[in-house]
Structures are given as C-alpha cells and as structure tokens.
C-alpha cells in the first residue's frame, strides 16, 4: 500500500465517508489532531450508532496508516462534556477535493464537518462574532515579509487622516520587530508602558492599570487639525523587552477557561478604543503567516491591507492563505470583503505594465479562491460575490504606493525645512492609500 501523507489523509477519509453505507444522522464528523491524524466523530452515544456502520468507520480510519491514531471512533463516550466538544465554534464546514478515480475522472469535492486542532494558527479561521459592539474602523497593515514600506505607509496614512481632522490611534502589534514607535515618536518621548507590558500585566490581573500609561501623542500630527495617538510595542526606556516578549503569548487561566492570545488582543484593542475614542485605528501587524497576524487580519480588521510587491514570493504566500479560507466557505464569506491589496514599492520604470501585471495576478488569485464561481451562462443571480476585474472598489483592485527614494530610511517626524517630506510629496506617494481608507470609513457611515 502506498504511504499516506498529510495531503492524502483527509481526502481518503472523505472518500471513504462518501462510499460507506451510513445512516443520515448523525452525520459523521472528522477531528484532525495536532499531529494531523484523523478520527471520525459521532455526535451520539456509541451504543446508539448502528454496528455495521461503525465497523465501516473503524476500518476506514485504520486504513489511514500513520494518519490514524487507532481505530477508535470518537463519540459522546469519549468525552466528559460532549456538548462542549460537538458545539465548539471551531468546527467548520470544509471542502475537500477528492482527486480523480482510477480512470482519471475527477471526483469533485466533498463537504465535511472538520474540527482542526492545531498548535497555532487557529485564529486564521476565527472571524469576530456578528453583532459585536460598534467600534471605529480598524485598518490592519499586513505584509508577508518586512521591507515593503508597510510601516512608512502606515505613518503617512496616519498623517493624511489627521490632516483631515481625524483622531487616529496607532497600535504596534509587530512585537517581534518593534519599530513603528521609532517612526512616530521621538526617542524618550513615548509612554511608560507598551503593548508587551499590557500582555504581562493583564496576565496577573492588572491590565487596566497600565492602559492609561501606554498611549502617547505623536508630534507627526502637530501641524494637522487631528491627532495621532500611539500604543507602541514597548515603553520608553525599556530594558527587559525580550524577557517580556517571551511571556507575552501565554494562555492565561481564568474562571471561564483559558484566555488565549486572540481574545486577549481583541480585549486590549477594545479597551484602548474605549479609552482613546479614536475615529480610526491603524494596526501594524506582524509580518508573515503568524498567529498575531491571523488575529489581526481575521479577528480585528474591518479592512486588512495586504502589502505585496508582486513576484512569486508574494503570490505563493497569499495564495496559501486564501486557499485555507476557500476550503472553509463560511469563513471565506466573512473575510473576503475586508481584504484590499496594496501594490507596494511600485517602480517608476515600466510602471504601467507592472501595475497591469499586478492587477491581473491579484484578480486571478481572488477569482480562483475567494470570489464566488460565476455560472457558465450569464444569469441575473445577484447574491454571488464576484466583482469585475476593473472594479476599483473590489478587494483585488490594488492601491498603489509608489517606490520613492525619499521615503526609504525616512524620518516622518522631520519638518520639511529640515529635510523631511512636504505635504504635497506625501499626498503624491500615499494619496491613493489615504483616499481609499477614507472611502472605506465612509462606507461604515453609509
């Protein structure tokens, strides 16, 4: 028998569920454990499930080789609180491609209820609950890698919004690469505490006490009619950042179960919003496919700005992220309209061709993964989400940020007379970004 690898296991399990003769109810579910091993799960007592059907499940499970733990099918008997297990919100309707039969005919896809138990990354699939409290529009600035001008764009966007009278709150969640505060706050002018402190103090029950002392005003907004308030990664004069960082992500026990990173981050953002009452929140996300980014993009963002420079490295990563969502249609529906691509560092040479190429790639990626498939014949169907390639408000339609040497190794706090950028230069490079943010915010008000 051929060796079964991770990719095969779920497909084989889904195929055997398709082929087995099973009762309609309860529908067999699948739990994938932290090692990727699969077990079938029955939302009933084992004794209430027909023996011949159970035997088929046990056999199918055993056939998964190293991707089965054993042939035990999970049921109410396996757990002390089966209601909690089977009612967990991490169960997702999941599409599994079945591959092809022996003659090469495609088998299409099957839908299973999957509980994916992962060490990390669970937050990519945890959109915020509907009907949460009203909050200012949250923009998350995300890139798969650093060095694409994300933080600079964030600062300039903050300035642009303050220029238009907005009170802007910046939050630095790029804890492994803290640097945002250096761009918007002069050295030694920050707050006493940083985001990292809140995580530690909250774990011992005094998060509320540091909250008022972790935000400071940025001089970047001095010449504007608005304000820029900054929650930096660390407080001023920090000496123990790594000792704190290594503890920041701990799950914190509480009477209502452990408080995980995602819930804690959301908590902090909500408390900061309540304290600062900003018109808009800009969040600097950790780069790459990391848990902190997952929480920011899936759990916090009203708009996630996906910074990309084109080229294989960007598309490979974003494609995997989009596929992850595509396989869980309920999550995909929730997430896709919040996404916007930013074409960062748009080169001046061959600009038009490069922009067109980026647009094409971005559209193709969305069309293939997160947009609804269009029916072969044109119908009047209106609830399908599939904006046209030229639709400028669509998620795939990129915001352009130009490559401008002036903004490389750039100090946004320098006044123009000291070599800083003039407002017109900022509007030139970042105007499109600022305009799109404002239009997304207006969308909330409408």
């Amino acid at each position, binding site marked *: 028998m051929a060796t079964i690898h991770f990719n095969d296991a779920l497909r084989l399990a889904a195929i055997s569920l398709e082929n087995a003769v099973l009762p309609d109810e309860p529908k067999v579910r699948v739990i994938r*454990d932290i090692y990727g091993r699969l077990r079938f799960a029955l939302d009933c007592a084992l004794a209430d499930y027909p023996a011949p059907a159970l035997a088929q499940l046990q056999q199918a499970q055993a056939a998964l080789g190293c991707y089965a733990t054993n042939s035990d099918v999970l049921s109410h008997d396996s757990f002390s609180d089966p209601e909690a297990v089977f009612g967990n919100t991490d169960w997702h309707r999941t599409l599994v491609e079945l591959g092809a039969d022996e003659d090469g005919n495609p088998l299409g896809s099957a839908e299973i209820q999957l509980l994916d138990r992962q060490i990390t990354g669970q937050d990519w699939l945890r959109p915020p609950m509907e009907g949460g409290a009203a909050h200012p529009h949250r923009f998350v600035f995300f890139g798969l890698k650093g060095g694409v001008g994300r933080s600079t764009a964030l600062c300039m966007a903050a300035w642009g919004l303050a220029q238009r009278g907005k009170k802007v709150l910046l939050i630095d969640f790029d804890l492994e690469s803290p640097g945002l505060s250096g761009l918007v706050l002069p050295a030694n002018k920050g707050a006493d505490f940083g985001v990292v402190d809140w995580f530690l103090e909250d774990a011992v029950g005094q998060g509320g006490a540091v909250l008022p002392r972790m935000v400071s005003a940025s001089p970047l907004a001095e010449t504007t009619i608005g304000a820029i308030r900054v929650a930096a990664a660390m407080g001023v004069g920090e000496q123990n950042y790594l000792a704190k960082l290594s503890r920041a992500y701990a799950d914190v026990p509480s009477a209502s179960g452990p408080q995980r990173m995602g819930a804690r981050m959301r908590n902090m953002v909500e408390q900061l919003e309540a304290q600062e009452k900003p018109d808009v929140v800009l969040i600097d996300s950790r780069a790459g496919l990391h848990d902190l980014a997952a929480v920011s993009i899936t759990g916090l963002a009203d708009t996630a700005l996906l910074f990309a420079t084109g080229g294989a490295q960007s598309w490979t990563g974003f494609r995997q992220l989009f596929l992850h969502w595509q396989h869980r249609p309920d999550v995909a529906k929730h997430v896709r309209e919040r996404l916007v691509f930013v074409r960062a560092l748009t080169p001046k040479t061959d600009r038009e061709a490069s922009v067109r190429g980026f647009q094409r790639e971005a559209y193709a990626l969305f069309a293939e993964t997160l947009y609804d498939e269009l029916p072969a014949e044109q119908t009047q169907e209106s609830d399908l989400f599939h904006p046209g390639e030229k639709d400028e408000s669509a998620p795939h339609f990129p915001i352009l940020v130009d490559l401008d040497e002036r903004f490389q190794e750039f100090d946004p706090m320098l006044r123009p007379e000291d070599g800083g950028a003039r407002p017109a230069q900022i509007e030139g490079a970042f105007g499109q970004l600022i305009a799109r943010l404002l239009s997304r915010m207006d969308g909330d008000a409408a």
Partner: protein
Amino acid sequence: MEAGGGGGEAGKNEEGMNTASLAPAAAPLPPRVAYELAARRHMTDAETLFAAGRLANAGQLYGFVAECGLKALLLACGIQPDADGDIPRKRPAPDKGKHPLREHMPLLMSNITADFQIVPDGVQANRYLALVPNRNDFHDWLVDHRYWRDTALPASVSLWRAGAREISTMLDQAQQDGVL
C-alpha cells in the same frame, strides 16, 4: 486450552502442540494502569453518587478524577512510565529519589507546580494546565477521608466537583488534540 505466546512461538503451546486452529495468538496485555480511562470512570461514578446524595464517596472519587487526569496528562507530556504504565516510584537517574509526581491530591498538584522541570514537555503541559485555573480546589481533600466519619469531612464537595470537571474538560481537549 490456553493460546500460545506471541512472536516466533505463535501457534504452538509450551509442549509444542499445534494450537493454531483453536485460538489466535494472544496480543500482549496492555499495561494495567490507564489513567484517562480511570479518570473518566471515577467521574461517571462520582456524578452518580453525587446525584444520589452520597456526597462522602462522591467527594473521594472527585479527588481521584483529578489525580488520574493530571497523571494522564503528565505521561502524555513525556514522563516515562514504569512497566505497569504508572508514574515510576523513583526520579530518573542520576537522582533516584522519590518521584514527586507519584502522589495523591493535593500534593500532586503542588508538586507539579514546584517541580515542574521534571516534566519533559513543559510547554505542552502548560498549555493544558491553563485549562485548570483553580489549582487550589483540592487543598482540603485527603485520600484518608475514606476512613473518616461523615461529620468530620470538610463540606467541600461542590468545590472538588468543580475541580474534577475542569480536569475532565482538560482531558476532552487533550483527547481531541491527539495528545492522550
């Protein structure tokens, strides 16, 4: 007639008689100690006693739920079991002192906290211990309560019950995760 042993002697008994047609070779017996199963059994029975108002023995069993549940987790986090499937009597070499985790509640829980470096996969253990926030629930539970008169027992059954439920929820999570 007994079935033959495993390995190369399969199908033959000690006298060399062919027994293959009579019975298949017996699989080696699993170790006797099975802490997850034991924890769940004690929980079911404790709840039955609790519902029937038999609080003294329900309380005794809740303490065993906690002990067995924690030991199931510890073994899943790299503590090497003895031949019985239990936590060994001695610490690993070179120390060889008494093993701090072969204890009943509440000493077991305080030793987990105090001697945590003995758990090889501490990161994993910590993840699941975070599901058990009230580490103090069994502070007044004693294995010797079984010898006591009813009126001498502390009135803590509901606290012990809450603690046993937390441990059970932790086991549910570890079971889903494939850790147990």
